[in-house]
């Protein structure tokens, strides 16, 4: 041991080798890397004059697959048929099935039950009044947990009322109330299939990756044609994006069910169905709830995009406010989305914790005693419903004069005059910062750009594609042998072959920088928060907010201060992608085996040593998964960065959308997904090796 500490260059504690060459030969991977990197550098520096094709992919070699994809989609949407009915009729039928329950919820919460359509529709029964909805959520909170939860839920919904977001929020809530349960159920079934058969799991894993990373713009038009231009399409797009984490978590959670429980199930003679629904899933609920949380968060994250397809609601409010530079309006509508997310998340978590109610005690009691909450809610709904109708109002004004009438109407619709708005306040703050500090901000930005960002971007773009493909192959071989090597090379080659190499490099530059910054911010916060419960709760609320607050809300002020371009885009991506960096770091450290920590303390570690030598080391695989998710989320933000004028793959999908070129959009979207898959597989393989080395598996 003393020897190695004297000579730190020797490596992982082996005895010093007789000669450097001999030492290298004994490590073939290291040798291969040295040679490969050396050759690549040499080629990069001197190869340009005689191998131009390796630097800029020749357009003559381009594979024009996008035209075929366009034609294929066209066929699928307009001509494909199963004999009895066409493909589009099938998708339209699915759309109809989803639309019906949505219409009922929407009628209940927002439009009321109508007869007729369009501007000639007549309201037969008004929607639930705001007082009724508030009562329901507060009592629901009390029912599943306690008054504290009831107060939290009530507070969230009261915000919607007081800030005048009610109408839009109810539209958004209606579509979320359909999309989230559907997404959860569908994901549960897919996850179950994946749990039962490794073959299915292998087949769906890449599909899940595509669903999470292909920008929505790429498949927006096909979805619209297949499912119609309505809220259902928006829900389908939402489900595509929000489902994958739940599927993954389901498979993981079911595998983690202790074998003792499964054995018990077998012993008592469970059928396969009983085994699944009475044994496996109930015991997996705590882990499954992580998936549910993600579905809710991601669904609400899609609200903005969904509003572009006809979902309306809060997303449309955010977009419209920001188009007229009404920052206050944008922030208020944005926070309405956040509060909805928090309310739904906390409610679902509490529901999962609640033990199933015991039946049978009190059979002889009246309906009021048996269902106090239901009775009370129904009563409130009916009373407020009647008071708020036109005859309720005319009655009230007849009894007590016009002011009574006004109050009576307010029971149904919260009057506009009573709402609060912070509108001008935010615009003024931004104006103040802009007028007084813009020059400093600009100088700081310029410094970062010229010294770090632009050189890094130039470097990436100048790399010869052939060398990058080969190095990725080598990386794949090092971490996962031939299979991974082939995967990395084929996918990266695809990007070059379809002619999007340069755009892909800019994408990697944007996401790379963002992931670096997000990790640098997120990991220390995660480490700090993991060890203090109270801080963790605060941090959790902040990252939940960051994940659900539509980035548009802060993107426009960011553009005002940092101008259009990559810098603004990076800020937006970092703000969004920092959440998983914090979450997974904290989670990893918190789940380190307490016995090992104990062992560390016993052997006399200082707190710093305990952190660096024990906790961080053991949490490393988990932290790597956090990094993985950070990369995924930053890639999924490309849709948004395209809107501030970056020239990456996200922009490419947006251009394809505006020019009605389905194929181009899908190809660019696939390239984004392939970058994500390469990064994901390499990191996963690395984490796996690490875990084996640490003896965690």
């Amino acid at each position, binding site marked *: 041991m003393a020897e190695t500490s004297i000579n730190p260059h020797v490596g992982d504690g082996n005895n010093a080798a007789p000669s450097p060459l001999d030492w290298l030969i004994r490590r073939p991977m290291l040798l291969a890397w040295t040679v490969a990197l050396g050759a690549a550098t040499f080629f990069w520096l001197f190869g340009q004059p005689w191998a131009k094709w390796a630097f800029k992919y020749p357009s003559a070699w381009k594979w024009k697959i996008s035209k075929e994809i366009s034609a294929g989609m066209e066929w699928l949407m307009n001509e494909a048929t199963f004999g009895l009915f066409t493909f589009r009729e099938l998708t339209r039928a699915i759309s109809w099935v989803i639309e019906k329950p949505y219409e009922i919820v929407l009628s209940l919460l927002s439009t009321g039950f109508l007869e007729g359509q369009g501007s000639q529709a007549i309201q037969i029964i008004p929607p639930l009044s705001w007082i009724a909805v508030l009562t329901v959520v507060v009592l629901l909170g009390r029912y599943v947990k306690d008054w504290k939860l009831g107060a939290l839920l009530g507070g969230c919904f009261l915000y919607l009322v007081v800030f005048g977001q009610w109408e839009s929020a109810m539209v958004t809530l209606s579509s979320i109330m359909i999309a989230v349960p559907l997404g959860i159920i569908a994901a549960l079934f897919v996850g179950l299939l994946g749990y039962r058969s490794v073959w299915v799991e292998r087949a769906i894993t890449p599909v899940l990756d595509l669903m999470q990373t292909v920008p929505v713009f790429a498949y927006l038009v096909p979805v619209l044609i297949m499912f119609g231009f309505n809220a259902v399409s928006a829900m389908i797009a939402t489900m595509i994006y929000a489902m994958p984490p739940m599927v993954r978590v389901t498979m993981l959670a079911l595998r983690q069910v202790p074998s003792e429980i499964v054995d018990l199930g077998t012993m008592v003679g469970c059928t396969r169905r009983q085994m699944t629904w009475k044994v496996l899933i109930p015991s997996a609920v705590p882990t499954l709830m992580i998936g549910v949380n993600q579905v809710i968060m991601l669904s609400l994250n899609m609200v903005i995009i969904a509003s572009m397809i006809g979902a309306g609601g809060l997303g449309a409010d955010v977009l419209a406010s920001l*188009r007229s530079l009404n920052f206050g309006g944008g922030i208020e509508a944005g926070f309405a989305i956040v509060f909805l997310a928090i309310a739904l998340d906390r409610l679902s978590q509490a529901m999962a914790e609640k033990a199933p109610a015991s039946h049978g005690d009190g059979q002889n009691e009246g309906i009021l005693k048996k269902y106090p909450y239901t009775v009370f809610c129904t009563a409130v709904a009916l009373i407020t419903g009647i008071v708020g109708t036109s005859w*309720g109002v005319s009655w009230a004004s007849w009894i007590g004069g016009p002011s009574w009438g006004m109050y009576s109407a307010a029971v149904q619709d919260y009057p506009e005059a009573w709402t609060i708005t912070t509108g001008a306040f935010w615009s003024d703050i931004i104006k103040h910062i802009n007028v007084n500090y813009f020059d400093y901000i600009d100088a700081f930005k310029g410094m970062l750009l010229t010294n770090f960002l632009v050189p890094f971007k130039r470097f990436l773009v100048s790399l010869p594609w052939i060398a990058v493909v080969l190095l990725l192959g080598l990386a794949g071989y090092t971490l996962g042998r031939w299979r991974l090597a082939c995967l990395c090379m084929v996918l990266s080659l695809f990007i070059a072959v379809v002619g999007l190499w340069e755009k892909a490099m800019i994408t990697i530059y944007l996401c790379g920088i963002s992931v670096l910054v997000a990790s640098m911010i997120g990991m220390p916060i995660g480490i700090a928060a993991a060890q203090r419960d109270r801080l963790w709760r605060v941090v959790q609320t902040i990252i939940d907010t960051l994940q659900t607050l539509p980035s548009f809300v802060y993107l426009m002020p960011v553009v005002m201060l940092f101008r259009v371009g990559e810098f603004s885009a990076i800020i937006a991506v970092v703000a969004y992608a920092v959440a998983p960096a914090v979450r997974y770091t904290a989670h990893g450290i918190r789940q380190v085996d307490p016995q090992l920590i104990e062992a560390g303390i016993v052997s006399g570690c200082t707190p710093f040593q305990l952190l660096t030598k024990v906790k961080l080391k053991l949490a490393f695989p988990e932290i790597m998964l956090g990094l993985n998710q950070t990369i995924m989320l930053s890639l999924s933000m490309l849709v948004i960065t395209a809107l501030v004028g970056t020239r990456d793959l996200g922009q490419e999908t947006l251009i394809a959308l505006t020019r009605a070129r389905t194929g181009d959009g899908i190809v660019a979207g696939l390239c984004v997904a392939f970058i994500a898959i390469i990064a994901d597989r390499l990191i996963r393989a690395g984490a796996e090796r690490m875990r084996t080395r640490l003896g965690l598996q």
Partner: protein
Amino acid sequence: MLRKSRGLMALLGGAALLGVTLAPQPALSEVESNDPIKITRHDWTGQYVTIEIMGEALKAAGYNIEYVQADYIAQFAGLKTGDLHLAMEIWETTGRDAMDEALATGKVENLGETGMKAIEEWWYPSYMKEKCPGLPNWEALKACGEAFATSETAPKGRYLGGPVSWEGRDEDRVAALDLPFEVVHAGTDGALFAELESAYQRKDPIMLWVYAPHWAPVKYEGEWVEFPAYTKECYTDASWGVNGDAEADCGKPRGPIWKVAWAGLKDKWPGAHKIITNFNITNDDMGGMVAAVDLEGKKVENVVADWMETNKDRWMKWIQ
């Protein structure tokens, strides 16, 4: 007793009132179909005003209408399948590609111009006139690179163009006219006007792409640069114009804003088809209404109702 009977009477009165509000509104004339005509609604004020006017006129003629929130470009997918029926503002300058693609399928029909003309061009706030004398003539720009520069583009000026997908050949224009400017593209017009607001607050130099009808040229004081007027030859024939060796040595095309509908609308609602085709308003109408909404904070419904009241003779002609 008294109280009770009062309550009962109120109840009866209320019921009568309810009956009145529930009775279907009598249609002015028989229409071909009572299904709602779905009109798309985007996310800018001018478009809200246009669809509100169209909707009110159609309603006055007895038609049933419905506004559907839809993305400006994505809506074509819905128009082709008949999920959506009418798009009131397809700009020559920004929607031409998507519109042509849709028209080519034969499932979408162009119902002619709205009467409004889209203007888009390089634009600057008035305070820049001091820093760059000679404006709005484009030749003044040749000496003004420095005046419009930022730290990233110096010594060249910075020109903030529209989204890449709304291509306006600005790179070509800069090269052809030999302007000391660098072109930077905004991804959305939200970002574009956020920058304008920011620069305007600080009275900082800015040159950017602004279009009308829009609230920006109403809210901010400024002018469009006067380039040599656009002709078709300018974009296709290099020998035309100031620079004999380059295309795009002129200003940008100004074009109509089109009305586009689902091709089936003609058969399902022939009367409405005629009304929509007749619809016609001007940039001045629109500018005034947009300013009333965005700058005076009035509601779109009220502004449109006022306009409908004072211009009754005009829209009555559409529906006759």
